[in-house]
């Protein structure tokens, strides 16, 4: 495609083209969201609360929980006052128990009844991660993907405040809210439970209930007499992951979460599976047990690409949390007579990734050339040696496997600039061989 073919009119037409099938593939889901919102629209409005909004917003991070996401967002007002229909209230409570949404009447009755009867074991987890209240089975875990020590910092999730409303000033700025979420985990010294087929990293205080060591049985629903009553997990949430969700190539992220029962109390000593989304669905990375306060923390393995992770316990999964790989760009220039070679090396990029070379003209960045990374993660641009100081910008556009990265390079005739490290993870703050404007 060349410039002649791209006049303004055709460009605008292309930009405003009707939606593609992939863009419109989730229409039914959105209509269901609309339907759910309308169904609970007449409910009273709750008092505003930052923590509540933050928890609600976290639901949006997981497209896999779309139904709950839709229902919860629309009817949360009614949920606080327990005025929703029972199934809806139950759905709300399963997700929003940590922020005070009460259970439904039937849930309260069931919980009370359950407390009076013999404890039932937790239903087996679909991901083959048995809870401590259920018999230990021979899970098909991959020991090679166990937790590894991490140097990553724990960060708080994005919890933006309401930024726009129908009658609000559209220019009102949104405000991110930080919520510290310290983890009691020491990932550097995991203690492996010999009864667990997957390396585990217990968090916080030692578990108060013994881990059952029964042999696999064909009737996993039979209660184990030695197991104390443990309320099944009703909600699992990720409270922090990685350093602002950005991970350096080969780096790890620590995912911290919280498990609560239907009544909102923390669930201790329950197995939690850290899962990552792959091309064939969710797969297990690691397993750990919750501490006495229901918290759990696990480290991912070295990340080579962006991925989504979630925590799962007792058949309940948290919203997905995106961990984004932040590539590192290094650019250097070599002048040989009339030609200057600009070399770019991208750590975290992939062979075939586009690399864009831009130059500043009249105050605007204009594309100079476009190349691709080779198998070694490098690209080279040969440009005429400039007559005066020229500043270049090299960009590695975002892809599904990594985030955007950029670096700058200034070329002065007669000099050979030293390599400039990448801007990552702050694309605008790239170092350069020469001062950048």
């Amino acid at each position, binding site marked *: 495609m060349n410039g002649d073919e791209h006049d303004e009119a055709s460009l605008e037409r292309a930009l405003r083209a009707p939606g593609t099938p992939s863009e419109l593939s989730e229409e039914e889901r959105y209509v269901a969201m609309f339907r759910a*919102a309308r169904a609970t629209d007449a409910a009273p409005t709750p008092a505003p609360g930052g923590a509540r909004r933050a928890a609600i917003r976290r639901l949006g991070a997981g497209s896999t929980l779309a139904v709950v996401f839709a229902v919860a967002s629309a009817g949360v007002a009614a949920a606080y006052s327990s005025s929703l229909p029972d199934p809806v209230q139950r759905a709300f409570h399963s997700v929003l128990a940590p922020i005070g949404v009460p259970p439904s009447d039937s849930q309260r009755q069931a919980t009370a009844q359950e407390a009076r009867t013999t404890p039932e074991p937790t239903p087996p987890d679909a991901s083959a991660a048995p809870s401590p209240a259920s018999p230990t089975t021979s899970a098909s875990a991959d020991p090679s993907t166990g937790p590894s020590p991490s140097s990553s910092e724990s960060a708080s999730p994005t919890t933006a405040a309401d*930024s726009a409303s129908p009658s609000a000033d559209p220019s009102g700025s949104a405000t991110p809210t930080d919520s510290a979420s310290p983890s009691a985990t020491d990932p550097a010294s995991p203690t492996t439970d010999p009864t667990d087929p997957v390396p585990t990293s217990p968090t916080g205080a030692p578990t108060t209930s013994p881990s059952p060591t029964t042999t696999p049985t064909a009737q996993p629903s039979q209660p184990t007499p030695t197991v104390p009553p443990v309320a099944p997990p009703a909600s699992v949430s990720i409270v922090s992951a990685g350093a602002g969700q950005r991970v350096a190539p080969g780096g790890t992220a620590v995912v911290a979460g919280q498990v609560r029962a239907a009544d909102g109390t923390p669930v201790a000593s329950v197995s939690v599976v850290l899962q990552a989304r792959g091309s064939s669905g969710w797969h297990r990375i690691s397993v750990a047990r919750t501490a006495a306060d229901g918290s759990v923390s696990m480290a991912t393995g070295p990340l080579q690409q962006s991925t989504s992770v979630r925590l799962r316990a007792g058949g309940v999964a948290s919203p997905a949390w995106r961990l984004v790989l932040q590539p590192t760009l290094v650019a250097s220039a070599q002048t040989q007579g009339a030609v200057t070679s600009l070399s770019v090396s991208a750590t975290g990029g992939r062979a075939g990734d*586009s690399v864009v070379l831009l130059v500043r003209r009249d105050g605007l960045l204009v594309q*100079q050339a476009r190349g691709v990374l080779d198998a070694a993660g490098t690209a080279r641009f040969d440009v005429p040696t*400039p007559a005066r100081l020229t500043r270049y910008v090299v960009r590695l556009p975002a892809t599904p496997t990594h*985030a955007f990265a950029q670096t700058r390079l200034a070329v002065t005739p007669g000099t050979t600039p030293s390599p400039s490290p990448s801007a990552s993870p702050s694309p605008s703050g790239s170092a350069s061989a020469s001062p950048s404007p």
Partner: protein
Amino acid sequence: MRAPVVELDDFRDHDEPMTELELALVAARAGDEAGFATLWRDLHPRLLRYLRVRGDEGAEDLAAETWMHVVKGLAAFEGGLADFRAWLFTIARHRAIDQGRARSRGLSVVPVADPAEAAARETTAPSAEDDAAENQATAAALRLVATLPPAQAEMVMLRVVAGLDVAHVASLLDKRPGAVRVGVHRALKTLSRTAGPRPEGGEES
């Protein structure tokens, strides 16, 4: 020398079924699912493209969060289609900014993505190749816009793709209307000139 300023047409007045969308908005406010679906089919692709060109990670999640707010407040919404679009994209932009702030403290430049390439890699359905062929022009255009400076790219997306008028774009970006007109005009001129690699060397900035 300053480039001559040419008033852009109001994009909404051309080939978009305004009457249908306005009726759909009225119906959706009254709770009609078909009306909401009509609105969504028109605006959701624009929203996704806008978020992708902004370079925001998880454009689908941001879009879902945006629509969640819309359906919550739709019954109380007052205004026409232009106001509705401005509302929708205001929510989306604020959500994206919040996400960006949380991810990278102190980021002053909104990175741009390569939506064409991303779209090509993300499509794994059997019809992925067909989709890619159908939308080659749109993908290429989005890729071009993504090479603009972030502020200009956002202006173009809000003005051309979202269909917001100059006043709304200026308000949303906290700029003067004249700056928006000039910025979009120059951006489109730049895009029409700079498609593809240029053989000559760089010039002094």
